[in-house]
C-alpha cells in the first residue's frame, strides 16, 4: 500500500495529465477563437457541433492524418527531437504545480516554484533546435529571436518572482499559498509592480502577441515552425499553450492566492462559497434556453447534454457547502473535500482569467518591433524589477519595525512600488533623451 501511494499514484496522475492536457489545450484554442470572433464581431467556429463545441476534436484528427514533411537537407534526428523536447519540458513543469491542496503530483518539493520555472524554460531548446534543424533562414531567424527574447525577459520574470517569494519566505508551492492564507492578503496586492512585471515578462516568454516576434507571419512566415507540419507542428502548438497554462498557474500561485477564494479568512463573506455553483447553474439554464433555437435534433440533444453537465458540476461544487448546513453531523467528514473541490474551482477560475487577459491583449495590441521589444525589456522592465526587489525588501524591513502585517503592510509596500515605478520611468526618460536619433524613426534592426 505504501509502495502504491509512493510510486503509482503520482504515476497515474501524471498519465492522466499527459492524456487530458491536449484536450484542454484544444478547448483553450477554441475559446481563444471564440473570444477573437467576439471581439471582431463575428461568430467564430460554428459548424462542428453546436457553437463549434466539437471543433478541437476535428482539428486534432485533421492534424494527425496530415502528411508529415521533413525538409530534404534537414538534420533528421534533431528535427525529430526538437518538438518532443518542447512538449516534454512544458508537461514536466505541470508536475510541480498545485491545483488544490490535494492535487499535486510532486508533493512537498522543497524547490517547488524554481522547478516549475527552470524546467519550463528548457522548452526553448526545442524552439532553437527546431529552427536550426529545419535548414531554413526563416526558421533560424525565428529561433534566434526567440532565444534572445527569452533570455532578456527571463531576468525580469525571475526578479518579479523574487519579490513574491520575499513575502512567502519559501519556495514550496503549497506553503506559498498557505502563507497567503495566514497573512490574509494576496501577494499580487502587496507587490503590484512585481505582478505587472511578471505579467509582461510571461507574455514575452510564451511568445504571445504583442511579443510574438519569433513567429511573426508578416516577416518570417511562421518563424521556427515554418518547416514543421502535421503532428510535429501540433506538438509545438501544444507546448505553447501548455506553457501559457504553466505561467498562468505560477502567477496564480504566487500573486493571486492559488486555490484560496477571495477573502478566505473573512467569515462574514462566506457566502462567496455559493457563487461557483450558482455560476454553473446560470450557464446550465442559459444552455436550456438556447436549446429550442438549435437547428438540428442532434445539436439540441448536445446542448441538453452540456446543460446537464453544468448542473452536475454545480451539484459537485455545492455539495461541500450545503452538506454541513443540511446535516451538521457530516460537517467534519466533508471538510477535507471543501478545499479540494472549491479550491480547484478557484484555481482554474484564476488561471482562466489570466489566460483570458493574454487573449484580450493579443486581439487589442499591434505587434512590437524587435528593437522596441528589446528596449522595453532591457531599459524598462529589468531596471524596474531590480529596483522593485530592493525597495520591497526595504519596505518589508520597515514593516517589521512598525509591526505591520497583512493588509497594513500595504502602507509600506505601495509607496515602495510607486517609487520603483517612478525611478524606472526616469531611467527610461533619461536614456531616451541621451539617444534622440535612435529613439525616433526606424532604428536599424541590430538584434535580429
Amino acid at each position, binding site marked *: 500500500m505504501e509502495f502504491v501511494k509512493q510510486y503509482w499514484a503520482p504515476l497515474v496522475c501524471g498519465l492522466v495529465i499527459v492524456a487530458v492536457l491536449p484536450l484542454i489545450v484544444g478547448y483553450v484554442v477554441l475559446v481563444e477563437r471564440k473570444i477573437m470572433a467576439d471581439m471582431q464581431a463575428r461568430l467564430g467556429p460554428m459548424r462542428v457541433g453546436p457553437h463549434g463545441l466539437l471543433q478541437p476534436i476535428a482539428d486534432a484528427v485533421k492534424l494527425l492524418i496530415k502528411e508529415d514533411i521533413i525538409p530534404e537537407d534537414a538534420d533528421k534526428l534533431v528535427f525529430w*527531437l526538437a518538438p518532443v523536447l518542447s512538449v516534454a519540458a512544458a508537461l514536466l513543469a505541470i508536475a510541480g504545480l498545485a491545483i488544490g491542496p490535494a492535487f499535486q503530483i510532486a508533493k512537498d518539493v522543497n524547490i517547488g516554484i524554481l522547478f516549475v520555472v*527552470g524546467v519550463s524554460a*528548457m522548452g526553448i531548446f526545442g524552439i532553437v533546435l527546431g529552427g536550426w534543424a529545419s535548414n531554413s533562414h526563416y526558421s533560424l531567424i525565428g529561433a534566434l529571436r526567440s532565444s534572445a527574447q527569452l533570455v532578456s525577459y527571463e531576468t525580469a520574470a525571475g526578479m518579479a518572482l523574487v519579490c513574491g517569494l520575499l513575502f512567502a519566505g519559501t519556495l514550496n508551492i503549497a506553503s506559498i499559498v498557505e502563507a497567503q492564507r495566514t497573512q490574509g492578503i494576496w501577494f499580487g496586492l502587496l507587490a503590484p509592480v512585481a505582478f505587472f512585471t511578471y505579467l509582461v515578462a510571461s507574455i514575452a516568454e510564451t511568445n504571445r502577441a504583442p511579443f510574438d516576434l519569433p513567429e511573426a507571419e508578416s516577416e518570417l512566415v511562421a518563424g521556427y515552425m515554418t518547416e514543421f507540419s502535421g503532428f510535429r507542428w501540433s506538438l509545438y502548438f501544444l507546448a505553447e499553450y501548455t506553457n501559457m497554462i504553466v505561467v498562468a498557474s505560477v502567477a496564480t500561485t504566487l500573486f493571486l492566492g492559488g486555490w484560496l477564494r477571495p477573502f478566505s479568512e473573512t467569515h462574514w463573506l462566506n457566502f462567496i462559497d455559493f457563487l461557483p455553483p450558482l455560476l454553473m447553474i446560470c450557464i446550465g439554464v442559459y444552455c436550456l434556453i438556447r436549446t429550442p433555437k438549435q437547428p438540428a435534433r442532434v445539436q439540441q440533444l448536445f446542448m441538453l447534454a452540456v446543460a446537464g453537465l453544468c448542473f452536475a458540476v454545480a451539484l459537485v461544487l455545492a455539495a461541500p457547502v450545503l452538506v454541513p448546513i443540511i446535516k451538521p453531523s457530516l460537517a467534519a467528514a466533508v471538510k477535507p473535500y471543501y478545499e479540494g473541490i472549491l479550491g480547484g474551482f478557484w484555481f482554474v477560475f484564476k488561471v482562466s482569467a489570466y489566460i483570458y487577459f493574454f487573449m484580450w491583449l493579443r486581439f487589442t495590441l499591434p505587434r512590437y518591433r524587435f528593437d522596441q521589444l528589446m528596449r522595453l525589456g532591457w531599459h524598462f522592465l529589468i531596471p524596474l524589477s531590480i529596483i522593485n526587489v530592493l525597495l520591497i525588501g526595504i519596505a518589508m524591513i520597515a514593516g517589521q519595525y512598525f509591526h505591520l502585517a497583512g493588509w497594513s503592510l500595504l502602507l509600506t509596500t505601495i509607496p515602495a512600488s510607486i517609487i520603483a515605478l517612478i525611478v524606472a520611468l526616469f531611467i527610461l526618460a533619461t536614456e531616451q533623451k541621451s539617444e534622440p536619433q535612435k529613439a525616433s524613426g526606424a532604428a536599424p534592426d541590430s538584434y535580429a
Partner: protein
Amino acid sequence: MLDQVIFYLFAAVAVISAILTVTRRNVVHSAIFLITALLATAGIFLQLRAEFLFIVQIILYVGGIMVLFVFVIMLVNLDVAVRQLQFARQKWVALLISLALAAQVGLMLWSTGKMPGQGVPVLAAAPVDKLPLNSEAVAKSLFETYLLPFEIASVLLLVAMIGAVVMAKKRT
C-alpha cells in the same frame, strides 16, 4: 535496489553522452549530448536529496548551453568544422596520463576497507527526516557562515560583467 538501478542508469547516460560530446563531429550534436550529460548529473543530485543543486544545475548549466547554441549557430561554420581535424596529435601522452589516472582511481577503490583511513570513505546514509530543508540549508551557509566570501565573489562577478560590457562597447 530501485535506487541503485536509477543511479546506474543516470551514471551510464552521463558517461556515454560525455564521450559522445567529445567525439561527435557536428558541434550542435555535441551540445545536445552535453545537455544530456548535465541533465543526468542533475538526476544524480536529485537522488542524493540535493534538490537545490539539481535545479541550479538545470537553470544555470543547462540554461547556459542555450547561449552556447546561439554562439555555435552564429559563429561556427559547420561545413568547415566537419572537415577539420578533430583531435590534437597527443595520443601517447594522453594515453599515459589517463592510464595513470585510472591506476590512481583503481588503487583508491581497491584500498577501501582494506586499509583503515584509506580509500573511499564509507558513510552511513543520513536519516531523511533529520536532513535540514535543502534551500534553507544552502541559504544559511551562504548568507550566515560564508557571507563575506559570498559577497566578495558577487562583487567580482559584477566587475567582470561590467568589464565585459565596457570592452564590447569600445569596438563600435
